């Protein structure tokens, strides 16, 4: 860790900014997914998938997104290792201080998201890349997958985990970027929580809509 010298706050700022970028991406992803709910036989959604698969700017952004995701993970792991090293010997009695649970769960929700994302990629993204066999008509595939109860439930659990991660992530981002103050701090936290709710409900509405045939 001593090879590359980045100050603790700089690392946290980078994690926060990458988190913001990934959250913005999630909103667009969720908005695109909402096309699945249209009763047009997948015309809009498949057109969108075709655009995403062929546009050069999107391809560049795909690499940027993947890079951001990897950097977000590497920096978080780096910070976690440093944090563990800062207290070589722990306390005998478990901590009883009044703290934010989100922060304690953040690493675990992050690991869960990574695991869920791998399954999600196996269903869709790796199929697009030709790494896994599957139906390239993602509208049909979404209908096939989300009508299976355990897959639909697994995706809903995934969105709950994403919500937990985003909710704390937003509050922490405002603090890390120095935006949390006496006057607007609480308002910013609420706005972040609303954004996390909106994105996760958009994702969940697609799964629920397809499952119940809306």
């Amino acid at each position, binding site marked *: 860790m001593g090879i590359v010298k980045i100050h603790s706050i700089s690392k946290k700022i980078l994690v926060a900014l990458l988190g913001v970028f990934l959250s913005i991406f999630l909103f667009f992803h969720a908005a695109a997914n909402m096309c699945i709910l249209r009763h047009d036989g997948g015309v809009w959604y498949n057109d969108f998938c075709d655009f995403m698969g062929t546009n050069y700017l999107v391809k560049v952004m795909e690499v940027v997104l993947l890079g951001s995701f990897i950097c977000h993970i590497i920096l978080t792991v780096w910070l976690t290792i440093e944090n563990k090293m*800062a207290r070589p010997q722990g306390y005998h009695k478990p901590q*009883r201080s009044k703290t934010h649970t989100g922060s304690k769960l953040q690493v675990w929700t992050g690991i869960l998201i990574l695991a869920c994302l791998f399954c999600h990629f196996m269903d869709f993204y790796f199929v697009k890349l030709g790494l896994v066999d599957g139906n390239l008509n993602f509208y049909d595939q979404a209908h096939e997958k989300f009508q299976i109860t355990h897959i639909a439930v697994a995706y809903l659990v995934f969105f709950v985990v994403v919500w937990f991660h985003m909710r704390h992530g937003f509050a922490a981002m405002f603090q890390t970027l120095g935006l949390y103050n006496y006057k607007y701090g609480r308002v910013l936290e609420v706005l972040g929580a609303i954004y996390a709710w909106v994105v996760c409900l958009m994702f969940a509405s697609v799964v629920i809509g397809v499952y119940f045939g809306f």
Partner: protein
Amino acid sequence: MRFILHIWRQENAHVKGHFETYPIDNISPDCSFLEMLDILNESLINDRIAHPVCFDNDCREGICGMCGLYINGRPHGNDDGITTCQLHMRKFKDGDEIWIEPWRAKAFPVIRDLVVDRSAFDKIIQAGGYISTTTGGVPDANAIPVNKHKADMAMDAAACIGCGACVAACKNASAMLFVGAKVSHLALLPQGKVEAMDRVRSMVAKMDELGFGNCTNTYACEAECPKLIKRQNISRLNRQWIGSLFGRDKK
């Protein structure tokens, strides 16, 4: 009142420590926690049972920041906005088992038993927690106008006594609340503003060098601070750090 005390005993930083159990009886509910330890030490010395338990203390009125014990999972014990010396035995139930540990952090090595070396905080202050000014005549206190709201915030931040409870409470042993408070109380006032950018960079660099952890916004520090220092000071520290990336003071 009677209690079962489990106290961390450690000869010095180089040997392994362990918990020793001491039953204690006839303790007044109005007795302070440190007075209770004094009574224990008296009996340990008189009965030649063991070496007295070493613990830091000085003013015993919540001002100096010397005392600091991790009691039953909380720095300074089970109450809000107090130091260990302000904790009273009436906060416990008769017959309670009390676990007493020193602050745990790489930057705060144990000197003996419950005493830790907190000179890491002094080193952070030495790195920039001051105003470089040549001495001279004392200026009129009202000569420089100061915004009332900012003066209040600076005073709130300056209340930090450097006890280290923030580091002890933080799951990452981060000193961000301490550094945030020290940076804030200077940067909010006109005299301290001049060197604000260099100060924040030097103090954060020293904090990292000394092996404190990173803040992950758990806010245990805010919950356990005996002087109720707010997390807004950490936010201000981050804000100042970002500002310092785009320009530095010329010395």
